[in-house]
């Protein structure tokens, strides 16, 4: 028997539970999902509204303004981020200005303080990225932002450490009166309580209507959003609202407390309270409206999209308090925006009313303090150092994009309201919320969940229920139960500070190190974030590596081992499990590892060899649900080849580059069925050999000029819609067909991992997606060299090794020279991409470039047959090379010899283009 049962673990339910924990009451909260904050509280704009938008006299207006005032103190108490960044309502035409004045008057009537009209010049001074067509704005300084799910978790934990009980995975079916008590039934259990708080969000109407004659009708109202990567997070400082009535009614753009930007939401009413899928129309609408606010919004800035459902009551206002005909049944229904803002004030009032009705005594003892968990990314270096010294798991970075350490994940799992799924870990730590969207860290987080909770690998889920991540866990007999062995990590023995630091111990880093050593450089250090050297090669167990370098057809691990053997024979120092997370223009390298702790190095040269990452689903914006079963192909390759798991049984693959093709064969050979490989372009990006040997051999259809246009499935993937595209790559209406599958593998592009390069301030090339380099692979800042997939994405590891050896020799020469050349001044000649050519590397040539064989690599922009490559030096054609075929899937190499420049070396530009008769 409980005194109060709160139904619903959103921000309102958890806030009410926490307020109730101030009284001597037996409290229980029931949440239908596997975690609190799983409904609207995880999928909203994260705004603490000032209060000018609510109708005067409404409950919304009252609690918005009261809540807004309570927020700073509330978040401080709970240890939750809160930033009073202020909001701007902008008008795009003179005609809209009276609308702003109306809003100001309404806000003042509601008691909002500090509202002020801004002129066009004033608003543009505050927000330089804003559309210059802006006519004026209303500034609300009390507008703020918070993190709604972190807040909800904090409220839940605070309530639990103060005696409340929370049961998750308990969906309430029925509430009924049993004498003096309320009976609350879930799937398998019955609970009794003296009072019930109905904070069931979208289901609050249904529950109320079981006990009260005063019916409540809740309509799910969908809001779709886009997230912008934190690299662009600084573009805006305020929350920017457009005036309702403009394109995309009420669509906002706002910074988040995590440094990203959020764009949205739409507002579409629907019947289904569980359908949180995104739609092509909705996502497009958000993007268009956001571009009106931010015309320069780049497509590549978008990292993911999602949808949330508001619980809109037909009354259009909050429904609060005891139902007149059901004493002891308290509603907090119809809580839509500004519900998050209203939460503190509303919860205090509602809990007060419940406590009064039960004649409860206040708790006399001091409240227990909830432990506020720290995050590696926000700690000072001294705090990081101390944390790692106390527990080395602080030094193991699991999520690279958001710098989340293993210690944080373990703490989140064992917290008072602990995380039991990937998404629950994500909401508490941000692991998987960054630009790669869990591409690297999900298998690791899953492994930690399995270990800490004693779950078999195949039982770890994305968000509880049937959202399992794997069809089969590791096959290695007893391996599934075996605890994960401590990684064998090598700590370097460097006697003195290294002269050259190589970031990345994959094929590029290894070859660069060996070449630098052979050039005489001895004070070398390779920093590798994985637990072993070799990089991505270790998971590429197929053959096709080494034909150029070794004249043999090797697998990835064999190729890697040959370089590792050479590396170790020379005794070159390396640290594995070591993540470089900061790089300065002065070559300050900050790295962290469990064994080495926090290290700050100052080498004379840095070789960038960080490789690349896979483009995630979120960046593509494929509409549909966010269920389990959607993997990047490379991640699936890791799961199958390195972890011995099977991600799924019925597979569709999007993208026919080599990784997609190789994985098609691999999945079939692992016992799965591959229904189709779907390719947007009219040609495959992969080698002909792979098309024949990976698809044709197994009868797997290749659907050219097709793409996946929708993802279906609530928990685990249930199918995808595949549609034809026209010559403009636009979906052909009516061409969609459903393919039932449990797994979608994405092989849709690789992105060089240049976050450190940008942080250092290196000039980047938009066309090659890597640092701008000269023929020595020297970047735009002295002492920085780049090679391998971080410089530009290669097809053949043999070429990576060759390129990296050059970078290694160059770095060694730079360190060895008495007066290293300042780079920018020495880079006068540009290598220019002409028609049909994309991403020439190097992009700049020094005068020395023409005295030696000069190798230039690039990709064709399309398929060309019977074409000629034309090389032009300052307008003079110096070379023509006949090519029977050029395809974007195969990088082209052009070597220019000193004799090609007999007519004189270019002073301005060396241009390469494709000529087709």
């Amino acid at each position, binding site marked *: 028997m409980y005194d109060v049962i709160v139904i619903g673990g959103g921000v309102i339910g958890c806030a009410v539970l926490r307020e109730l924990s101030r009284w001597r009451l037996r409290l229980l909260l029931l949440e239908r999902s596997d975690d609190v904050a799983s409904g609207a509280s995880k999928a909203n704009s994260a705004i603490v509204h000032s209060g000018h938008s609510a109708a005067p006299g409404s409950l919304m207006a009252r609690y918005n303004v009261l809540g807004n005032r309570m927020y700073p103190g509330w978040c401080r108490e709970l240890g939750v981020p809160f930033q009073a960044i202020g909001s701007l309502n902008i008008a795009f035409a003179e005609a809209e200005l009276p609308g702003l004045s109306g809003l100001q008057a309404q806000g003042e009537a509601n008691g909002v303080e500090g509202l002020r009209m801004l002129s066009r010049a004033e608003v543009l001074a505050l927000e330089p990225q804003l559309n210059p067509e802006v006519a004026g704005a209303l500034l609300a300084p009390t507008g703020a932002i918070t993190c709604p799910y972190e807040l909800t978790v904090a409220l839940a934990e605070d309530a639990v450490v103060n005696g409340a009980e929370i049961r998750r995975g308990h969906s309430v079916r029925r509430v009924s009166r049993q004498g003096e008590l309320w009976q609350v039934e879930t799937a398998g259990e019955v609970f009794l309580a003296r009072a019930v708080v109905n904070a069931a969000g979208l289901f609050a109407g249904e529950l109320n209507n079981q006990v009260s004659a005063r019916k409540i009708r809740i309509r799910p109202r969908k809001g779709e959003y886009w997230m912008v990567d934190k690299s662009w997070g600084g573009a805006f400082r305020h929350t920017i609202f457009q005036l309702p009535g403009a394109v995309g009614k009420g669509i906002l753009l706002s910074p988040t407390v995590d440094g990203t930007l959020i764009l949205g939401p739409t507002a579409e009413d629907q019947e289904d309270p569980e359908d949180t899928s995104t739609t092509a129309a909705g996502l497009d609408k958000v993007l268009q409206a956001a571009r009106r606010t931010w015309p320069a919004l780049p497509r590549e800035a978008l990292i993911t999209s999602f949808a949330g459902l508001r619980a809109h009551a037909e009354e259009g206002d909050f429904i609060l308090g005891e139902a007149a005909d059901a004493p002891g049944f308290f509603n907090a229904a119809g809580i839509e925006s500004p519900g998050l803002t209203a939460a503190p004030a509303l919860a205090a009032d509602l809990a007060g009313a419940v406590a009064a009705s039960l004649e409860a005594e206040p708790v006399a003892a001091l409240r227990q303090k909830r432990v506020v968990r720290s995050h590696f990314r926000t700690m000072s270096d001294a705090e990081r150092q101390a944390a790692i010294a106390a527990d080395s798991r602080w030094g193991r970075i699991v999520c690279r994009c958001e710098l989340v350490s293993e210690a944080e994940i373990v703490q989140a799992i064992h917290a008072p309201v602990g995380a039991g799924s990937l998404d629950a870990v994500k909401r508490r730590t941000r692991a998987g919320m960054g630009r790669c969207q869990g591409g690297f860290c999900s298998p690791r987080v899953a492994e930690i969940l399995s270990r800490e909770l004693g779950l078999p690998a195949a039982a770890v889920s994305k968000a509880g229920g049937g959202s399992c991540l794997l069809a089969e866990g*590791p096959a290695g*007999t*007893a391996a599934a139960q075996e605890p994960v062995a401590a990684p064998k990590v090598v700590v370097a023995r460097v006697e003195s500070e290294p002269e050259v630091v190589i970031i990345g111990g994959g094929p590029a880093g290894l070859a660069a190190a060996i070449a630098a050593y052979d050039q005489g450089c001895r004070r070398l250090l390779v920093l590798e974030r994985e637990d072993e050297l070799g990089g991505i090669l270790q998971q590429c*167990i197929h053959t096709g590596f080494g034909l150029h370098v070794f004249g043999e057809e090797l697998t990835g691990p064999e190729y890697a081992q040959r370089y590792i053997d050479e590396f170790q024979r020379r005794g070159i120092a390396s640290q594995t499990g070591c993540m470089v997370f900061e790089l300065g223009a002065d070559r300050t390298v900050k790295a962290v590892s469990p064994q080495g702790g926090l290290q700050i190095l100052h080498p004379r040269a840095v070789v960038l060899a960080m490789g690349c990452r896979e483009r995630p689903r979120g960046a593509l914006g494929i509409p549909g649900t966010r269920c389990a079963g959607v993997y990047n192909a490379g991640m699936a390759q890791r799961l199958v080849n390195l972890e011995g798991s099977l991600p799924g049984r019925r597979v569709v693959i999007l993208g026919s580059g080599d990784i997609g093709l190789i994985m098609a064969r691999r999945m079939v050979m692992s016992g799965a069925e591959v229904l189709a490989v779907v390719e947007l372009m009219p040609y495959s990006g992969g080698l*002909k050999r792979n098309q*024949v040997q990976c698809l044709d051999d197994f009868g797997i259809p290749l659907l050219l000029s097709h793409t996946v246009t929708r993802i279906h499935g609530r928990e685990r993937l249930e199918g995808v819609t595949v549609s034809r595209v026209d010559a403009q790559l636009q979906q052909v209406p009516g061409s969609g067909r459903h393919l039932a599958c449990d797994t979608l593998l994405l092989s849709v592009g690789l992105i060089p991992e240049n976050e450190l390069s940008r942080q250092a301030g290196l000039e980047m090339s938009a066309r090659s997606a890597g640092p701008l380099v000269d023929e020595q692979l020297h970047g735009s800042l002295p002492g920085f060299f780049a090679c391998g997939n971080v410089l530009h994405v290669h097809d053949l590891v043999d070429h990576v090794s060759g390129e990296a050896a050059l970078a290694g020799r160059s770095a060694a020469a730079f360190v060895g020279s008495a007066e290293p050349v300042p780079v920018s001044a020495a880079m006068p000649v540009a290598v220019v991409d002409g028609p049909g050519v994309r991403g020439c590397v190097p992009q700049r040539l020094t005068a020395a470039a023409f005295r030696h064989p000069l190798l230039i690599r690039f990709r064709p922009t399309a398929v060309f047959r019977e074409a000629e490559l034309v090389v032009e030096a300052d307008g003079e054609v110096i070379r023509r090379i006949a090519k029977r075929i050029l395809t974007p899937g195969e990088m082209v190499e052009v070597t220019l010899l000193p004799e090609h420049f007999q007519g004189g070396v270019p002073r301005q530009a060396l241009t390469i283009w494709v000529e087709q008769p």
Partner: protein
Amino acid sequence: MKKAITCIGCPLGCPLEVELTAAGAVAEVQGHGCRRGEAYARQECLNPTRMVTASLPVAGRRQPLSVRTDRPLPKALIPACLEAIRACRPVLPVRIGAVLIADIGGSGVDVIATRNLE
């Protein structure tokens, strides 16, 4: 009898058409753009081969052992090869190049380890 195959020699991917005699010999190759294409067509019709790569679970180890054939295996022997790999229980430690399964189906082709596993 005619057989259609795609040439894998280069990105052109010439569609090859091979005329086979009743005895299964190659009578004529059409559609090739170069000599390598013609040779591939003959090889692919008379004795198609593939490099086989796979991984197999190792008792008590989380990480599977990756393996390959030491040279291309006649295509018809691939199912037998995969069967033998599935049944293989290697004894650790294993070094790269160690022969795990010898002479698949009398072909002379071996299955070797492609990783060191201590």
